């Protein structure tokens, strides 16, 4: 069986800066794949290439066996790949219900308004925002907005969900809830590709991990294997506490 | 001397004034991301300020540019606090509309006072005659004044403390505040200078052409074209783009009917916007 997502030889350049360079990896159906790396490693850029926000300068992206390189983000969603943003982008003056309805309306199933509302209510329940469906999005806390991001992406009924730092800025109990949510999503048959800085979380969630540094893929493999990779340790040398954490997590 | 050359010289002379007219717009836009729609009304007020001062005190009209500038600074501070301060940093539509509202009020008051009849500043400087063609002294003097003001503005922005602070705020307001620059004060100053520039250019235009309280609109539109071509907050960029615009008018007019000029100009404007949405010299607007 071929992989759900195949990224091969992808590069992206901004002016003189090579943001992503010749990155290749696969994501299998039903898998949670983590993407880690120091700040500025090119993680979000890679997400933006995968879901079509940026056109890569080289390389191809295949999704469900079909080439999706360079097609626009809205078409990528229709194919079944949804994402969240690291910096949340709520549709502030719409209600939560409308926010999520947008996701359902224009997602993979391209539902009509009525069908989309039903899905949206369901998804809002699922992420724990059901009671606030008729509030305006701008009134949410940061944790609420992160959940809303996830809900909108889920409402698109994706095959693959791209999560960009959904845990950042949450307090420990919120982190725990979100981790449970991600697990539930995967158990519901959605594959997950996630960027995360919170090492403990990503090490425990991911089936495999891809490590980026300075736009290049440094390592790929199961969490415990990646942690012991000497290149990875070296890349994080500037951040001793992270190395420390990495080792501790792997030992745990 | 050929007609085309004469037409080009005329174009360059008036183009320098277009450039000056655009500097104020471009400065305000660059510093606080506000497209100042009072610009045209302020240009018109500059024209009437010159007219009033000149009727009170005939003599060398160009000396009167200084009091006009002074009035412009004061008016700029007023307009800033009245309509802009509350909307800086809000969506651009808000400042677009609040400055447009002030524009309507200024035009309304101006119409009540002066109606919309044409006025003239009856001042003329000995011109320069080359063959059959004469270039009026007023045009030459206005172009020189525009050049001098551009130089002064350039010096101010790059060599003085306040000027550097304005550029810092334009670059990154938050970072500038962290460095201890009071962004409110700087925004007020920048806005006041922008208005003073608009009024000064209006005062110069009043020595060239007759004007009504509505005349500013033409120069405001030309200022948009110039600003889009030049990019934001660059006095010399604006001057050069203005001269280019004037030159274009000069080069084209001998060959086609003048009534086609606006079509070419605004066509160019739209093309420039689409091709260089951040200005040719480039300053990225906040996404």
């Amino acid at each position, binding site marked *: 069986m071929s992989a759900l997502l195949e990224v091969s030889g992808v590069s992206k350049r901004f002016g003189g800066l090579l943001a992503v360079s010749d990155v290749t990896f696969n994501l299998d159906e039903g898998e949670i794949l983590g993407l880690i790396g120091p700040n500025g490693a090119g993680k979000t850029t890679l997400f933006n290439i995968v879901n079509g926000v940026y056109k890569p300068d080289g390389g191809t992206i295949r999704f469900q066996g079909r080439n999706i390189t360079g097609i626009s983000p809205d078409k990528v969603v229709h194919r079944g790949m949804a994402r969240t*943003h690291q910096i949340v982008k709520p549709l502030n003056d719409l209600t939560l219900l409308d926010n999520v309805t947008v996701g359902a309306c224009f997602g993979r199933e391209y539902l009509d308004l009525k069908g989309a509302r039903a899905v949206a209510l369901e998804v809002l329940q699922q992420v724990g925002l059901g009671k606030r469906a008729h509030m305006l999005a701008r009134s949410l806390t940061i944790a609420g907005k992160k959940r809303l991001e996830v809900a909108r992406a889920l409402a698109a009924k994706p095959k693959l969900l791209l999560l960009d730092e959904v845990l950042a800025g949450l307090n420990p109990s919120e982190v725990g809830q979100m981790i449970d949510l991600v697990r539930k999503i995967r158990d519901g048959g959605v594959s997950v590709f996630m960027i995360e800085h919170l090492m403990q979380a990503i090490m425990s969630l991911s089936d495999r991990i891809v490590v980026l540094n300075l736009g290049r893929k440094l390592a790929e493999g199961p969490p415990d294997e990646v942690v012991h990779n000497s290149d990875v340790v070296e890349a994080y040398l500037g951040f001793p506490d992270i190395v420390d954490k990495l080792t501790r997590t792997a030992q745990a | 001397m050929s007609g085309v050359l004469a037409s080009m010289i005329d174009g360059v002379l008036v183009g320098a004034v277009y450039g000056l007219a655009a500097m104020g717009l471009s400065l305000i836009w660059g510093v606080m991301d506000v497209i100042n729609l009072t610009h045209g009304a302020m240009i018109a007020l500059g024209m009437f300020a010159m007219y009033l001062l000149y009727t009170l005190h005939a003599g060398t009209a160009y000396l009167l540019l200084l009091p006009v500038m002074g009035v412009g600074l004061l008016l700029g501070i007023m307009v800033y606090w009245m309509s802009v301060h509350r909307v800086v940093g809000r969506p651009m539509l808000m400042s677009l509309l609040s400055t447009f509202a002030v524009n309507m009020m200024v035009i309304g008051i101006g119409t009540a006072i002066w109606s919309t009849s044409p006025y003239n500043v009856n001042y003329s400087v000995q011109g320069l005659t080359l063959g059959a063609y004469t270039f009026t002294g007023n045009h030459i003097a206005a172009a020189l004044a525009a050049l001098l003001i551009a130089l002064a503005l350039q010096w101010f922005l790059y060599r003085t403390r306040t000027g550097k602070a304005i550029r810092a705020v334009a670059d990154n307001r938050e970072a500038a505040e962290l460095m201890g620059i009071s962004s409110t004060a700087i925004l007020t100053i920048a806005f006041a200078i922008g208005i003073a520039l608009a009024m000064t250019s209006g005062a110069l235009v009043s020595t060239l052409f007759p004007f009504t309280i509505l005349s500013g609109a033409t120069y405001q539109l030309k200022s948009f074209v110039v600003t889009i071509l030049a990019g934001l907050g660059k006095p010399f960029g604006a001057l050069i783009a203005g001269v280019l615009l004037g030159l274009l008018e000069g080069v084209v007019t001998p060959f086609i009917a003048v009534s086609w000029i606006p*079509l070419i100009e605004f066509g160019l404007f739209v093309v420039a916007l*689409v091709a260089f949405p951040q200005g040719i010299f480039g300053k990225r607007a906040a996404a």
Partner: protein
Amino acid sequence: MILRRPFFWIILAIAALFIYLPLHGNNVSLREDLILVAIAIILASNLNLMIGYTGYVNFGHIVFYGLGGYVGLYLATVRGLNLVAAALIAGVVVSLCAFLFGLAILRLRGAYFALATIGILQAVQSFVSNFDPWGRSTGMYLSFESYQSLGGAMHALWVTYYLIIGVMALSMILSLAVKNSKFGLGLFAIREDEDAAVVLGVNATVYKSIVYSVSAFLPAVAGTFMFYKNGMIDPSIAFEYMLSLEGIVMLMLGGQGAVMGAALGAGLYEKLRSYLLTSPKLSDFHLVIAGGLLLLVVLFAPGGLMGWFYRLLPRAREVVE
């Protein structure tokens, strides 16, 4: 679907009132006042699709009205077409023009788009001023006899009035229908955050192009009727920049984004303006007062009258949309 919205029936009631009031006692003077209100509502409602729904400020919206007037009048007089057919063709032609303009300028965002619309307006006006078949800046005149086909001048005025009220009702129904549709939801998403909307699957390019051309259609149709009633058209009245800007004032005053907001703002502003204009003491100050109102709304009540109303009565959102 739309028949189930209470506001649909409110719109019909408003239109019926517009027809009944002047007809009652043959009050032609009232009709003349109402026709300007109706035109203002048509312009503001369709502008609302761009500004209120999609978040794109169109300073040159009047270009559709003027072009529609030109195309329609040309077809009706020079080509001798039936008035309604001419107006519909004008609507289609102008929508196509809008689509083409949109291809060029809809890739611009925010203020840059707004500026480009000024450029479009000026360029089109300049083109028409030089276009011989349309009489250059002299414009086109209608023969008094052409009203005979509608049963004489007096009758023709009533007919055009009904037609314009029809277009007004359609404009509001269009706003209502879009607001309650998937298409409208896509537009709202674009208004709130275009990048996010695209990532959520909204094809922003297509949506913007469609709404831009749709917002051109009814103003163009109304333009044909209005300039037919007017008896003549020339570039300065067809493409009046000031009227374009006043459309924005009306919308802000009433409350952008709300169907009723556009209508309310247009109605109030037009009433206020005609009052100020015919009152000898205030006629010089109508701009000052309009500008002052706009400033107050923008600074202190960006939601306009409807925003204030909704805050007062949040439940009213479902009825008065």
